[in-house]
């Protein structure tokens, strides 16, 4: 059941998108998300959707895999759409009791729904095609200017990469502990809410102990290799822009321009 979580997972395959510099992908994803919020009509969303479909196609990640992560946000999506549908004031087209559905409500609900789906799809496409290490490397590199105002960029990215690295490990561990306790008759799935919360203790205690032990071991291993922060640290594989990355940036700029022109200026 834990295997269903695809958010933040990497999908190993060979594609143009996978080979792109992580910085391009991070900038691209952020531009994509920002452009989603600038769009004011459906033409803009159509362009964004087309762009997304092309990117998914290019990435060689099976669409089924991308949309599996959508299950997790299904309820959020549902609630957002229902609230927008019923609570937007305007020209009523359908009403019963205290509720009414307005024309504006339908439009807003549809827009919010599309926006949310695109947002999740876009960002999961980034994590699916970039290894956690690459991702944090890219982020560190992009945030480097902030070092001037004393933001601990290296530390933040190190923490991020360790956290990302440990998600699958801890997930696997959770699975094992769950099975070990289930073999002793533990029941994680039935009972009242309080009972269920209580039944998590036999799972959480071993999990926390193991997490602390791992953290301890990792700190020791880092120290043994003389880790002392980012100062003067060099990389084995430094990020270098290639020709395809320049093309990538160009595509992003074109996309944002297109979305703004069509989604905001031409058709209001």
């Amino acid at each position, binding site marked *: 059941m834990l*295997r269903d979580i695809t958010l933040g997972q990497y*999908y190993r*395959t060979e594609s143009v998108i996978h080979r792109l510099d992580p910085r391009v992908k991070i900038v691209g994803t952020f531009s994509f998300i920002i452009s989603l919020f600038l769009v004011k009509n459906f033409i803009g969303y159509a362009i964004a959707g087309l762009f997304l479909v092309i990117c998914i196609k290019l990435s060689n990640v*099976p669409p089924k895999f991308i949309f599996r992560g959508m299950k997790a946000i299904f309820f959020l999506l549902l609630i957002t759409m229902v609230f927008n549908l019923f609570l937007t004031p305007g020209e009523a087209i359908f009403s019963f009791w205290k509720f009414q559905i307005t024309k504006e409500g339908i439009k807003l609900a549809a827009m919010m729904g599309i926006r949310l789906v695109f947002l999740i799809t876009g960002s999961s496409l980034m994590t699916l095609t970039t290894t956690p290490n690459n991702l944090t490397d890219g982020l560190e590199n992009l945030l480097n200017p902030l070092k001037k105002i004393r933001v601990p960029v290296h530390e933040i990215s190190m923490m991020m990469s360790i956290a990302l690295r440990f998600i699958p490990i801890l997930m696997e*561990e959770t699975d094992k502990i769950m099975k070990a306790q289930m073999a*002793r*008759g533990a029941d994680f799935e039935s009972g009242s809410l309080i009972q269920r919360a209580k039944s998590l203790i036999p799972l959480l205690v*071993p999990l926390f102990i193991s997490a602390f032990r791992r953290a301890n071991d990792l700190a020791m291993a880092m120290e043994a290799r003389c880790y002392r922060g980012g100062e003067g640290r060099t990389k084995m594989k430094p990020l270098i822009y290639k020709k395809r990355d320049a093309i990538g940036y160009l595509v992003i700029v074109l996309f944002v321009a297109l979305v703004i022109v069509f989604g905001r200026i031409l058709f209001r």
Partner: protein
Amino acid sequence: MSIIINHLNYIYDEDTAMAHPALIDVNLKIPDGQFIGLIGHTGSGKSTLIQHMNGLIKPSSGNVFFDNEDINEQGYDKKKLRSNVGLVFQYPEHQLFETDCFKDVCFGPKNLGLPQKEVELRAFEALEQVGFDATYFYQSPFDLSGGQKRRVAIAGVLAMKPRVLILDEPTAGLDPKGREDILNLISDLHKKMNITIILVSHSMEDVADYVERIIVMNKGRVAFDAEPRDVFSHVKELEEIGLAAPQVTYCMQELREAGFDVDTGVTTLEEAKKEILKAFGKC
């Protein structure tokens, strides 16, 4: 009164790009009271197989029967199954969680819904059975040594009074003394309580002295299923799948090649000693 595994298949990550078979057409019959060694290389499917036996994993196809009932049928009481087929996982750290050892052992029987008195009685009995020192009963399980932790973990499953006890690599990470202690303990449990025991290991050396039947897994299939001496006679095949026969077997084979009249089928040190003495006596 036995476990029957019928054409069992299991595929990991089914319907994703990473799908790969973990078990392929496994057929086994495990009668009551046997002491079985389940041997295989890492990734041979042995852990996956034992998890099928108490319903922790659902097979992709095929059936598992316990007492002539299909355990994956709708409405089958999994809790009862798990009290009958006890599974002790490799790392005791994965199951110990209570503030003291005694309470931790109580966890299993308590989940069976037994009255408090019975729960404590069983926990006490189980801790005695594994030879756990009474002075440590109320100590935190996290302060114990590896061998003692393992004892508490085994007691935690024994307290549910299983009829089949499956142990996944119970000797992993122990020193030679601790290893022998645990193996002797398991062997004693088998003799005294007459329960079925399945001992999972990747080392022939571990199981050769104790078990009456060896099942060798390789790449998700059952490669051998026979008495130890039969299995060890296939030294070549065992080596091909990355396993080895016990050192005794090699020793006896070399003696034979050197011209001594010894039985190469012996599996334990004791038997080997007798054979060698016999051969020399004849000389």
